[in-house]
């Protein structure tokens, strides 16, 4: 490897700027796993098919085995390590645990990232929508049902939280008046 082949690139990974010196051919997945030690992103096929290595690049799901690290320069990258806040699991992680949406857990980080993207785009998906959105990720253990249930449960939980947060303050007296007036 010649020195002139090395490119300096800065990735913003899980909110932290990480400068890297990489060959242009270095895959994003290898930069994340080997250069930054973020081994939560797993490599299932390195053929761009199985979705295990899915991460978010500027909010969009990307197979990190199909993207060069240099292409991600200046981008915001979220990996599975960036989902929880401290010891508090992300609601989708919590739902995966609750519904036992995993067995060996190898494909799970990819499913979580695909699920996070789905729920951002469509906060209230139906089952067919979830299955379609997860069609790019392969799981060999679960038969998908528990994964689908976990995504639906997380959506449901978020919807309830939104309702709670967005509920306008009700003027109790006015409501009573209105009802009595009927």
């Amino acid at each position, binding site marked *: *490897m010649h020195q002139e082949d090395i490119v300096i690139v800065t990735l913003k990974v899980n909110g932290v700027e990480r400068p890297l010196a990489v060959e242009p051919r270095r895959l994003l997945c290898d930069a994340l796993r080997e250069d930054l030690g973020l081994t939560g992103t797993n490599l299932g096929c390195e053929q761009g098919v199985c979705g295990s290595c899915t991460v978010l690049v500027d909010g969009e799901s990307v197979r990190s085995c199909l993207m060069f690290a240099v292409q991600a320069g200046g981008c915001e990258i979220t990996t599975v390590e960036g989902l929880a806040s401290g010891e508090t699991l992300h609601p989708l992680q919590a739902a995966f645990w609750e519904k036992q949406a995993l067995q*060996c857990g*190898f494909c799970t980080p990819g499913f979580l990232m695909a699920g996070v993207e789905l729920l951002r785009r469509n906060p209230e998906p139906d089952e067919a929508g979830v299955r379609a959105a997860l*069609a790019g*990720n392969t799981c060999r*253990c679960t*038969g998908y049902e528990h994964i689908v249930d976990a995504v639906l449960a997380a959506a449901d939980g978020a919807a309830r939280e939104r309702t709670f947060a967005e509920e306008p303050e009700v003027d109790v007296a006015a409501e009573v008046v209105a009802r009595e007036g009927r």
Partner: protein
Amino acid sequence: MSQPRSWRGKAGRTMETQERRWIGRDLKRREDPALVTGKARFTNDVSLPGMLHAAVLRSPHAHARILSIDADAARELPGVHAVLTGRDALELIDPVPCFAAEPVEERAIAVEKVRYNGEAVVAVAADSRYVAEDALGRVRVEWETLEPVADAEAAMEPGAPLVHENLDSNVVYDQTFTFGDVEGDFARADRVIRRRLRWPRAAPAPMEPSGAVCAYDSAAGRMDVWSNTNMLNFVAWTIAGTLKMPPHRVNFHPMYTGGSFGSKHVLGKQVAIAGALSKATGRPVKFMEDRADNLMANDSQGPERVYDAELAVTDEGDLLSLRLHTVDDYGAYFMFAITGNTNMMAQISGPYTISSVETGIKAVLTNKNQQTVFRGAGSDVGNWVLERLVDAAANELGLDGIELRRKNFIQPDQFPYKIPTGNVYDSGNYPAVLELALGHADLDHWRAEQERARAEGRYIGIGIATAQQRSTYFSTEFWFHNPAPATGLTTSPESVRIGIGPTGGLTVTMFSPFWGNSPETVVSQVVAEEFGVDPEEVAVDYDSTMHGLPSAGPGGSRMTVMLSGAVRGAAAKVKKKMFDIAAHLLEASPDDLELADGRVWVKGFPVEERSLSIADIGMKAYWHKLELPEGMEGGLEGSYTYDHPYASMPSDDRTDLGAFYPIMGHACHVAVVEVDAETGRVEFLKYLAAHDVGTVVNPRSLQGQIRGGIAQGIGIALYEEVRYGPEGENLSASLDEYLLPGAPDVPRVEVLHHETPSPFTEYGVKGGGEGGRMVAPPAVTRAVEDALSPLGVKIGALPITPEKILTLTQGREA
């Protein structure tokens, strides 16, 4: 254990077992937090100082002689530390473990010739995988291509090229077993149902490929191995032989395993490649398969069988006798001999009172990656073949398939039941499982839907399968097919160690790795049951082979049974010592003590002052020698090696194979599908699975296994096939070509449980890890066949791809 009692619980679950406090609880898995946060450490996550990365050059030919290899340019590439041809590696490694009696030698890197497309030819260790792969591009191999033996039929022809020249034929094994009066039963049959049935070659394809990190320390004369091999405490000593190392100087570290399904039992080749390169460089070396490596050369492809299958029946629908003759394509090597065929002899006659069986097996070597085992291990094939015959019998006799099954079931009062092969079924209630399934299947509704659809020119079909799911193998299975006196190995152990520390904390150590199931959850539930503590308080860990106790590891749906037994044994030892200490301190007899809610009490005196907590006893055991009974050893721990609870030897003439897979589960699956005759797509309208695997330890974990297994069963029924071209070229070396079912393809599965405890195992547990995959294929096949029955379609081959459906439907119509 008290007598089981019968009761009907809430809808969807019937049981004949007693209630327990922690066993049977639907607890969240304790394995999951590390996995959902990405903190779990898989083999590819291991990184050691100075570690090199390996890559392997694979043969482009299925059958070719290596004339010469020029690797100089590869060696000269900066960053390359070692380049090994098969010849170079001879000094460093011996052949990989082979458990067959036949002399079929396999080396991790081919020496004189290659026998399948994808066999390793050169291995490189370099600073990065990138440089290692660059180096492979600089290797020049001069080949003499040989005529490939691309399928079993060609391999059996006289004069066919030999896959192994030291054998005089590619038919490496050819034997017929007869159990009972097959001739007599066929003679008195009114009718013989005959089918030719083809089961396709498949691949376990777990999401995590196989691999190893090996670190050779020449000063210490020691090798450390981090690999996702599953049977490390059972077979590591054989891999040490491959590494030319004394077994006690090779330390295998148990790793989290990203799925196996049979593909990671040994991994001798992967360890040997990393180990040879580590020896050559003096540095740690990682070799991880990529997906192409995995699909071309993992040594875990499943059976590829053609059956001539016959079922002798009476006009009244009595199933009398079964005659199966198969040609099975084993590929280029023979690591586990014919294990996949012996396995199904455990349940070859299914849940039925078939009184005699003949099974002929021709194992054929071809130029393909070898067959070993894939979830079901051949019993998946056996279930499919038998249920195909039963469905065919119903059709030919004009009987209802459900009635035919019901009529021939072994009855609940007939257990333990010895089947013709000699295997014993411990317990079961097949009519109850069928009724449970039918109670939820709503068949009247679906038959009406089917009628309506047919009137509209649409195709809806219903498939029902009632089949066995053997669990907990015994090791006679590995050798009883050899025509020799019964002298093979007779152990299949699993061990745990339970330690209680000075503050009362419980730690359980396992010696088999996490493989995608729930060993930590199961073990903590059983420990909680035994000691009356909360499972969350129990610490669970794994230990490496240098500290290991006999443990065969996952395989054959055994771990929940075996770990439960091992925990109970170890707990008994620890409790004995606790009671001895407590008896001494409380001035009572150990016989008058009991353990409840984490305290040792004097029976009949529920007074806290006359009791001791586990922590009280732990503190005395570690810190108060003079308060212990005289002469007692300090500390508080117990280990236990549990072995098979019920097994027996085969007879020398092999007309009785003995009990070798007696912990017998059962299931009934109901599948309803709609087949689109235009596109060939199969859509599931309903899927229901009623399973009986004895006492359920953790319902959600078991249901996960069942649903996941069914997805794999749907896979082999509709999509999955490892395909080779006419020159033996692998046509399915990516997940684009080897199709796995995706989220839109797999239906919701209603899972129901019936519990008939095993009388042989602790707590009555049976194994349930493979049942989904073993029972789904016949149900799905029948559903598709039933849908297309107006067209007169009969299905005798899997997978039923859209192309095949179109051939069947349009062929008929044309």
